[in-house]
């Protein structure tokens, strides 16, 4: 009898401890693009704040993130969407205004990345990274004097191109090739863009998201549509690769950290955002993922060759680039309709 009691009490203890080990902790839910953070930073944050546990999830594009937070009951605490998506979230009243007293490191962000058009008073977002869209190519296989978006539609590149399976990026470059804006709202132009993309199929080796990076590093394809930051990472792994920002004008994007309105740990989320802006952390992160930093001290500490690389293009390139705008629900639905018709045409 005594033995049974002993075993039972041991079991009770075990169950208690198992239950206790996590229950005291605040869970911080971070939802970010895939391959877009140095995940060892989470360990540092948890070490510094033993009462916080980070639960990390990733998405492949802004639209997937939006659909998830709109329909899911999960309350995320920190999101890192892009400009036009932040604009949409603000318009739909889905973000919480930030308390900058809790984010003193916000002062480290370069003024030129503050108060941008998608968040004009900078009430909701802290810049995370920025970059451009361009063409990553294998120098041994692709020789071009100048790159334009049309290069990706050139018939000589049969079965050679990895296209991004991202609605705004793919339709965007098709629109641009046709001489329209990345932010076109015309049904006629979008239909033309769809047909243009469908006509590109013989050139395409695959429609990819982040898996395109591994494929380029492994030399699976000579050319890919890619964000500058991902391209920098690929180049660091495979020296045959190079990156070009097309002459006819690129997309310029700003990804920022925001807190959704239904977050239950707003202060913890602000603490995390502040942590991400600490110079040492922001530097490690930028080094690892290859994207362009909006952080003054991190930028100043960059080696000369990085500052002169495509990651920080000069004014002439940036002037020609367009930032995506949120085009309203009706036009967004039109984009979605055209995009799924395009996918169906494959």
């Amino acid at each position, binding site marked *: 009898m005594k033995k049974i009691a002993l075993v039972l009490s041991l079991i009770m203890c075990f169950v208690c401890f198992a239950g206790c080990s996590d229950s005291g902790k605040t869970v911080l839910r971070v939802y970010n693009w895939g391959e877009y953070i140095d995940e060892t930073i989470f360990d540092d944050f948890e070490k510094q704040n033993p009462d916080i546990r980070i639960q990390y999830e990733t998405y492949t594009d802004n639209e997937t993130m939006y659909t998830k937070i709109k329909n899911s009951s999960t309350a995320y605490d920190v999101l890192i969407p892009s400009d036009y998506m932040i604009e949409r979230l603000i318009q739909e009243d889905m973000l919480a205004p930030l308390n900058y007293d809790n984010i003193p490191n916000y002062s480290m962000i370069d003024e030129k990345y503050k108060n941008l058009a998608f968040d004009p008073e900078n009430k909701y977002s802290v810049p995370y990274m920025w970059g451009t869209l361009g063409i990553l190519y294998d120098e041994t296989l692709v020789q071009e004097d100048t790159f334009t978006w049309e290069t990706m539609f050139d018939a000589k590149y049969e079965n050679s191109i990895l296209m991004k399976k991202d609605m705004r990026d793919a339709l965007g470059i098709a629109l641009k090739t046709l001489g329209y804006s990345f932010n076109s709202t015309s049904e006629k132009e979008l239909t033309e863009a769809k047909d243009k993309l469908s006509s590109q199929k013989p050139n395409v*080796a*695959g429609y990819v998201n982040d898996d395109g990076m591994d494929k380029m590093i492994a030399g699976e394809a000579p050319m890919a549509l890619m964000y500058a930051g991902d391209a920098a990472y690929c180049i660091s792994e495979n020296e045959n690769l190079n990156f070009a920002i097309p002459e006819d004008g690129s997309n310029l994007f700003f990804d920022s950290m925001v807190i959704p309105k239904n977050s239950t740990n707003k202060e913890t989320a602000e603490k995390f955002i502040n942590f991400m802006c600490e110079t040492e952390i922001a530097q490690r992160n930028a080094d690892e993922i290859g994207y362009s930093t909006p952080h003054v001290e991190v930028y100043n500490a960059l080696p000369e060759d990085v500052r002169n690389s495509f990651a920080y293009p000069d004014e002439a390139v940036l002037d020609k680039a367009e930032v995506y705008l949120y085009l309203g629900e009706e036009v967004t639905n039109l984009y979605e309709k055209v995009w799924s018709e395009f996918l*169906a045409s494959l």
Partner: protein
Amino acid sequence: MKVKKSLYMVALFPFLIWLILLVVVPLMLIGYYGFTNAAGIFSFDNFHQFFQPDYLRVLWRSLYLSLVATVFCLLAGYPVAMILAGNTFRKKTLLVVLLIAPMWMNFLLRTYAWLTLLEGNGVFNTILQAMGLPKQSFLGNTNAVVFGMVYNFLPYMIFPIYNSISKIPKNILEAARDLGGGNATCFFRIILPLSVPGIISGITMVFVPGVTTFVISQFLGSGKVTLIGDIIEQQFMHAGNWGFGSAISIVVMVVVVVCMWLVNRFSDDSGVMMP
């Protein structure tokens, strides 16, 4: 008797709850979303959007590729099922383990593993090159997708057929032999007709998941072969257009049910083959 019946009900209760929550309610929701527009008013808009050449072609492609995969599974699976059910092959346990072992691994991982084998600089191409042969692009076409379906669904064809063949009483076959029936006669007039129920459930278990798959086409088709499952996934996960996604799901369900009904009709007729 009455007591027994209520006992049955109690035993059934957990399953009934499961059935209602996870089958009936979702089906009703899909019906609701499919037949209403964004404003929640009854309409056929979603179906109207679906019935246009591009989407119909995707549906047709899904049915066709799945049918091809089913035929391959049947041709490859039937002999294996016969070997398993027969007495001539001694290492049956080993064969069963080899067939089942891959199913212990996650379906996604298994399909992903094929990428490493088939890609441009993958294992197969390295071997081809070592033998002085030119590189092949295995991925990104319908063959790769059919291959993926056959690979993943083959066991679902083999085991139902094996079951029905092994249930055939040995004395029927012995009687046939006594009456002078040869191998061919025994197979076509006894084994094949009596294994039809297994074939039917094998076809169902391969064809239906084949029609609705989206992972295989995304991985092995490199996103270049869109199946109807891809479109449905796109509507729910990306576009947030549940109405359209539900409408496509309803169309696919109706088509699949009709296909299965036809297959079952055929199997009833085939009973005539029995002497």
